[in-house]
């Protein structure tokens, strides 16, 4: 009982246990490379990866910065684009019926396949990267926001109606706010996708960002460098995820209790 609740409640456990988990996984990985004598070009050991990182830390961090920028820009853009679409979907059955399969279809397109096309269309600047991130992550945002708005309890909707609230008020004072917890679920799914989107975009037509590093190092058979970049990406992704978790706690204190 006491042990259980320590694991459950102490903030130290909430931070320590995940770290222990990660450390354990890294140890296993290391062990595997040693026990099976795996060559580093097949699967570099954690040590190779760290060495590879220490070789040029500032370079790698700069490229991480580039990727972060694209990810965050595209992610914000996806919110800006996705929420109004969700609004439209919720507002009218007609629009939902018309638009939904289109959304599904766009979502179904393998984004890697169109990365080169985006460059052909939009050139070498930041745009194709940001747009790729947008494309990759706007779907879950739209769906979860729409779902959240639709699940607004009928009693609250009736309340606003009985107060003779306008449609706009209904949406902005009620539905959008109500949808926020579900929206955050969508955002948390979207953020990992956003990171991956930036990587895919950086495979093509740029010399910056972790995606480029991965592609380039793959091409020059530098697997440890590729893994260093992948590791940085994973860390980036996890950090962004937990930033969202934090934001959720701060912005939606009322939501945590009504789970």
């Amino acid at each position, binding site marked *: 009982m006491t042990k259980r609740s320590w694991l459950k409640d102490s903030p130290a456990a909430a931070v320590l246990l995940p770290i222990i988990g990660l450390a354990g996984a890294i140890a296993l990985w290391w062990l595997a490379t040693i026990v099976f004598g795996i060559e580093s070009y*097949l699967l570099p050991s954690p040590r190779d990866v760290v060495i590879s990182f220490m070789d040029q830390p500032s370079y790698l961090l700069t490229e991480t910065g580039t990727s972060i920028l694209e990810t965050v820009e595209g992610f914000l853009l996806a919110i800006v684009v996705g929420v109004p679409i969700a609004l439209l979907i919720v507002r009218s059955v007609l629009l939902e019926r018309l638009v939904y399969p289109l959304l599904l279809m766009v979502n179904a397109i393998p984004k890697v396949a169109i990365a*080169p096309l985006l*460059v052909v269309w939009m050139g*070498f600047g930041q745009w194709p990267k940001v747009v790729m991130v947008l494309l990759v992550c706007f779907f879950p945002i739209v769906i979860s926001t729409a779902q959240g708005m639709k699940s607004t309890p009928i009693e609250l909707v009736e309340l606003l109606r009985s107060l003779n609230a306008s449609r706009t008020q209904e949406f902005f004072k009620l539905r959008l706010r109500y949808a926020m917890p579900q929206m955050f679920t969508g955002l948390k799914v979207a953020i990992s996708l956003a990171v991956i989107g930036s990587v895919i975009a950086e495979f093509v037509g740029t010399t910056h960002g972790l995606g480029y590093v991965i592609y380039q190092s793959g091409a*020059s*058979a530098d697997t440890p460098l590729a893994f260093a970049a992948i590791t940085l990406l994973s860390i980036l992704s996890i950090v962004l995820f937990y930033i969202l978790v934090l934001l959720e706690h701060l912005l939606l204190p009322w939501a945590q209790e009504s789970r």
Partner: protein
Amino acid sequence: NNDDEGKQADTGLTKVSYLTSFNTFGREAYAYVALEKGYFKDAGFDVTINPGSGTVDVMKLVAGGQADYGIGDFTGAVITLGKQKLPVTTVGMIHQRSLAAIVSLEGYGITKPQDLVGKSVGDQPGSTNTVMFPVYAKAAKIPADKTDFIPSPPPALPQLLASGKVPAIGQFVVGVPLVEKADPKHRKAVVLPYGDVLPDLYGNAIITRTDLAKDHPDQVKKFTAALLKGLQDTIDDPAAAAATLKKYVPQTDVGVATEELKLMKPYVKPDGFNDPLGSVDPQRVQTILNLLDEAGAIKPAGSVKAEDVVSADLAPKS
């Protein structure tokens, strides 16, 4: 969508964007050398270098106006133009001989073209090596359909070869140092260059838009000249060129890059080649077209004319 020729920066330089043929390997160093040494600036250009991702993509990007100049394999370009009339032309050669080759490692039992029969070769789909293989097979007198090409992304090729998943890969000659570096057992590479049996093939060419070539021939000539000057410096001092590249592309392995550039030299300026760097021989272009017609790589045969693919008058001449 091509108003770039008018784009004058404050400095009075013409803004120009340039695409490497594929990524930023050592073999692409010459553009960075020309940039670093100010050759482009002297010729009145402010050049941005972007990494390309293969001949076809480069052609599309140039055709679509996203880039003004690009590097792509000449043969590949010809075959692509046979399928799709993109508004691009070539205005000079980087490599006087084709770098395309099949590469294997010692101990995989491949030492001559005949050994390829019944083997599989890993390569990027649509690469010059894949596309030209029937032509190569014909010249080497082996059956073209007895060799399987397994599509693999370029980054994975060295590992696939080293791990023995495939006994051979399509690779440019200059890629050999990379292949050897990727092999943890440090075996020597076995190289079967297409140029051995097809001496007429060119390697990479400088690609630009047709209208740019037509409307601003002087500009094109000046750009080509500056780029080739960088190429000259590069083959004269590969180590320095590799170091320059490292400046722009930090994760360059200078050793490998130098090695690549040394290997590249005889392809840029073969023994007994005394024309200026980059020059084009209309005679050879026609030979190549004939070869491709015969091999069925252009359909219908004869549909591509030399003037469709080269602007020979813009290339450097002796």
